[in-house]
């Protein structure tokens, strides 16, 4: 095996060393050689995202659920609704509690005693985006003003972490809310709200409280795209390996009305100039159109069943 210490891997050595060894020893140069040909190691174009699939309703015990795969990144979202008393200063709104967890199954760096640092940050960012984008009208989660409202517990589990976790999590949350079926409730004799199961709904002695309002209206749906900026290249939808090699990540969240819900860039070796910001937003716009089409198709497939 030829010695590689202190050797700049330009011409000669690249011919002698195996591709896989070059990949492990000089990951940044390996990527840069691909970028110079405007391609990535998985033969994607620089601006193209990985294949995305959405499966609605995999968790039958939850009121709404979705399983999203972006390439190898797999994320499962489930919503459970519980009746609670709303607070005094906002008596006719429900609330949403978002939790994002990365169990050890998702990545070798996550161990039971060493939780992922990025999990609570993604949970908070998801919560902010869901609330500020106006995706859900919290008043629709109200049952009886001042007395009862729905509390939606949105739990998102990452099953396989291979880059673009926030994108997959946001898409799964949007899909789960679109799939959500609010259970029927009726007032029992002692003044409590009880859920009426589907089979008994016609035989129930008491009239259900929320017969008309079974699905949430998703006014605007936010979609996100994470890009990596390296030198003058912009890579859309990075894998976890690309994310670890190149450290400047930009996440753009656009809603279906093309408003900017979030542009998140924290540190990184590359400074972002206005032209790069504009290019990232253009890529995010294309991705938003792709994703809203995929979501629409899976929702209509659900309705056919």
């Amino acid at each position, binding site marked *: 095996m030829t010695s590689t210490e202190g050797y700049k891997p330009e011409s000669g050595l690249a011919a002698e060393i195996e591709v896989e060894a070059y990949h492990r020893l000089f990951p940044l140069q390996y990527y840069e050689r691909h970028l110079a040909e405007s391609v990535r190691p998985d033969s994607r174009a620089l601006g193209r995202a990985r294949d995305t699939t959405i499966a609605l309703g995999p968790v039958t015990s939850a009121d709404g659920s979705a399983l999203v795969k972006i390439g190898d990144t797999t994320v499962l979202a489930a919503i459970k609704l519980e009746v609670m008393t709303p607070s005094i200063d906002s008596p006719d709104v429900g609330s949403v509690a978002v939790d994002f967890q990365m169990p050890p199954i998702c990545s070798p760096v996550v161990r039971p005693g*060493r939780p992922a640092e990025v999990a609570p*940050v993604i949970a908070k960012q998801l919560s902010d985006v869901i609330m500020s984008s106006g995706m859900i009208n919290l008043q629709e989660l109200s049952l009886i003003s001042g007395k009862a409202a729905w509390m939606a517990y949105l739990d998102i589990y990452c099953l396989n972490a291979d880059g673009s976790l926030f994108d997959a999590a946001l898409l799964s949350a949007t899909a789960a809310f679109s799939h959500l079926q609010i259970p029927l409730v009726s007032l029992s004799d002692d003044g409590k709200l009880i859920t009426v199961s589907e089979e008994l709904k016609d035989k129930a002695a008491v009239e259900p409280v929320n017969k008309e309002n079974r699905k949430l209206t998703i006014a605007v749906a936010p979609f996100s795209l994470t890009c990596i900026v390296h030198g003058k290249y912009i890579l859309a939808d990075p894998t976890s390996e690309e994310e670890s090699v190149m450290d400047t990540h930009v996440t753009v969240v656009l809603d279906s009305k093309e408003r900017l819900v979030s542009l998140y860039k924290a540190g*990184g070796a590359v*400074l972002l100039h206005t032209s790069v910001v504009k290019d990232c937003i253009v890529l995010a716009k294309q991705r938003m159109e792709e994703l809203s089409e995929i979501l629409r198709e899976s929702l209509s497939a659900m309705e056919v069943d």
Partner: protein
Amino acid sequence: MFEMVELITSSTLHIRNNVRADGRTLNQLRPLTCSRNLLNRAHGSARWSQGDTTVLAAVFGPKAGTKKGENPEKASIEVIWKPKTGQIGRREKEYEMILRQTLQSICLLTVHPNTTTSIIVQVIGDDGALLSCAINASCVALVDAGIPLKHLAVSICCGLTVGGHVILDPTVLEEQKLKAVLHLVFPNPPLSIHHKTQSLLKDEPIEHGIITSVMRGVMSVPDYEHCLDRGRIACTKISEFVRRNLQSSAREGLAKAT
């Protein structure tokens, strides 16, 4: 002649003739104060305040060893955020991550490999624009500790009102009524006689590049670009303030030593 009773509705920001509730114009910042070397046990410390928002930052480091999982060929930065009241939750973890990634990009990590530098941020007062205040305080604390940096960083908080105006450095009351709040961090590059263009794009100067951008709320893309422009202009002013402040305290330190 009847009195004009001004009705301040609870959901809108009261801006008349481009003057805000506390008398500032749209682009006016609150008074900035910065002091260094306050704590004698810490290697570096700084206190930065913008109006009533005050943050104290302390730097300890470089200490030997890196945490498990960190690259030992580079120095690593660790941030601990202490809120004024309450338990540490997701918000504090998010601030820690943003601050850590921002400061990592301005430090020269290869000068002291296999070391850890800890930055502890203590919130003393929160009246809006907290993250920007913390970033400014941390940067001055790093300078006070003598940690090698590529360049300095300055941060500004912008907000977009419901009426479409861009305001700078909002207070807590203003933040609650804004459509969107945006924290931006720009570099404060060294002034030199040689005009070396270090940025890749020859027509855009280095101080226009964004180090960090964190947004909450919704705004249109042109509004975002508008905020960037206003933010850059404000940051040049803050950069001058930081330089003046650091140079004068450096001169004082030299006078005391001799």
